[in-house]
């Protein structure tokens, strides 16, 4: 349940709505700790996962599905570079060198873009497929209906069926 819907639910119970709780301070604290303790890997991670982090800011949908897909895809491409710099000591210089390599940064960002693309296209393809299946089912039902009506001299086609034929999806 989203915060907004939780607030609405609270309203519906007649109690004052609690202000949404923010964990931004915790995120900031963690980032600061990481930047202090492991500045190289933190810098590299920040840059490699920049599309995902950006999508976290932009994605306002509940559960942030798009950002989740971009982050997971970007993380899959970033694991190897981050592991390499962690094994090498993790200095800022090494991180900058690695960021200077366009293959590393490009792969991570393209992979993130791939995650975004999948998150956008998968629902679309699924809907087309589901509508197609529904239309096919409606066609089979109409054929069966026509057969029954003709076989038993039943009443003409119902309004529901006509509506289904006009707008199967």
């Amino acid at each position, binding site marked *: 349940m989203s915060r907004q819907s939780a607030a609405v639910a609270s309203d519906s119970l007649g109690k004052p709505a609690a202000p949404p709780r923010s964990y931004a301070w915790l995120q900031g604290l963690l980032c600061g700790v990481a930047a202090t303790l492991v500045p190289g890997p933190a810098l590299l991670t920040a840059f490699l996962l920049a599309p995902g982090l950006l999508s976290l800011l932009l994605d306002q949908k509940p*559960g942030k*599905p*798009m950002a*989740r*897909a*971009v*982050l*997971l*895809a970007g*993380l*899959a*491409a970033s*694991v*190897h570079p981050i*592991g390499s710099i962690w094994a090498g000591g993790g200095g800022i210089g090494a991180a900058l060198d690695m960021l200077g390599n366009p293959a590393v940064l490009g792969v991570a960002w393209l*992979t993130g873009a791939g*995650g975004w693309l*999948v*998150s956008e*296209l*998968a*629902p*679309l*393809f*699924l*809907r087309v*497929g*589901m*509508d197609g299946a*529904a239309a096919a*089912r*409606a066609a089979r*039902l*109409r054929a*069966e*209906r026509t057969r*029954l*009506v*003709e*076989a*038993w*001299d*039943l009443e003409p086609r*119902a309004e*529901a*069926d006509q*509506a*289904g034929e*006009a*707008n*199967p*999806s």
Partner: protein
Amino acid sequence: MPGSDAPLPEGLIAGLYKADPARPVSGFDGASAFVARGVDAAEEFLAIESPAGMAPRALALKALANQPIPGLMAPLAHGPAKLPGRRPAYYVVTPSPPGQSLLGRSLPGRSLVPPSRAWSEAALLALVLRPVAAALERLAARGVTHRAIRPDNLFQAAPDEPVVLGPAWSTPPASRQPALYEPPYVAQCRASGRGEGGIAEDIYALGVVLIVLALGREPLADEEPEAIVRRKLALGSFAAIAAEERLPGELSGLVRAMLAEDPGQRPLPAELLDPVFARGRRAPHQFARRAPEPLVVGAHEAFLPRSLAHALAETPQVGIRLLRLGVVDRWLRRSLGDPALAQAVEQVTQRRARDATEGEERADALLLMRAVAVLDPLAPLAWRGISFWPDGLGPMLAEGDAASPIAEIIETEVLAAWAACRAGREPSAALSMEARRLRALAQRGGLGGGLKRLGYFLNPLMSCRSPLIGEQIAVTIPALLTALDGSAAEPDRRRDPPMDAEIAAFILARAPGGLEADLTRLAPSSEVLEKALVPLRVFAALQVSTRAGPLPRLGRWLATQAEPLLGSWKERSRRKTMQEQLSALAERGDLAAMLKVVEDPSARARDAEGLKEAERTLRGIDDELARIASGAPLRAEKARQLGQEIAAGAGLAALSLTLVMMAFG
């Protein structure tokens, strides 16, 4: 051998006699007649056609079947036939007449007998009285009357040969008898309503014949029938006919006895066979009190109760008025001097008040009927100006004569009321039972009920008069089926159902029980399905019960009419199958099998159950189609959620794969 279930062969009667329409014999029994030959013999016979609208005498034909009687042209065979160039008709075959009739009717190739010679007493007794009395005795032994004894129906091979009684079987009893030859209580009846009568009526006619032959001419030849009846009632039959004539020797007494007014006082045929007895027979003394002043009833002047009864019956409106005003009983008491009779009439008049609860007109008719019966116990039943004998109802219905009064007579059980008034002259209980039976038959409703059914019931040899069989003759159920099969050859016929009121009435009267429920349910207002199913059910039952052969054209006719029946079956494929089956069975003429196809209860139940199942399925389909039509937003949301899960899953899978690859170097 009435009826045949095969199509009528040209000119063949009962399969035994072939009539030749090119050799007509005029005037027999008042009907057309033709020379006929046996199929296997050269001997000539006479085929007499039963006139249209008249039913042959079934009782007589049945009683005399295959029983030749010397001195009588008894029926040898009878049945429907189609003579070339003539309409189909019912024929009765008798032996050929031995010669000319006593009035000189001619037969082809035979010489004429002088018609006007006066016969001697000896010749009358030997050549007329004894042979005719012998034939009448044999007829009486079989419970049959002749009722057509008159000079033109008596035949003689040669002047010294005994006469032979002519035929009397193709028309209702006495329907062709002139008033002279019948007692007044018969002559005043409608021609078709004279009834079988008794052998005493034949004796009466024979007595008149003896007078005519003895005189060499017909007395009262110039008189109208009504005038002859009045004269006989006023003077007595013998006096009316022969009082002013000179009859030879002992004949006068014999004839007087034969013409006795009371049939119970006439000699029996066996008594007439004895010449001594015949000569010595004297009529009982008959005394009728005569009023000095007549009672005028319309155009009639009545001096005697019998004349008064006749006058009342002939002019019912005037008679009813006189009865209700008490004029009749006053005349009986004061002028005739018969207080007992006056009191009886007065009681009848008083009884009218009770009858008036069921209608004034009916009460008046009952009053008149009872008054006539009281005044003249010998008189026939008089109802609304119609006089008839109860056993004449059948022929009257066959002629379509006076249907409305007859319906009233049946409905009111007039026969019972009449019998109760006749002071022991008629077995009252038997007539009461007959009246109830006729009423019960006529009251049954539905198609073919009422008088139509009664007409066929009372006339066993009356052909079915349905226009659906056209001119064909059908007096039996197999013949009806054959006739309908023949009619079905005309495509125009098949537009209407093969069952109308006439056919239904015919079947109800002729077929064994079991079909009554179906036909009674069938009425002009019946539902279409009933109208289609009942004929098939009835004809199928008749085909089975009479073991009739295949009826392919009737089958096709019924199949055509079965369209509404097929329409009542819900499954189209089943209808098509049934249609094909019906067509195939119709071609075979198997009506029972056709009925099984359209009246299969288990198949009907399966059809109904299938319809219910189809309707249930249809409702389910409609619901699902409605859900599909309204489910687009739901599917879109589902696709979005699932798509996002797939994207996340793909990312997670890639991450997992990378980690695994790193872990394993």
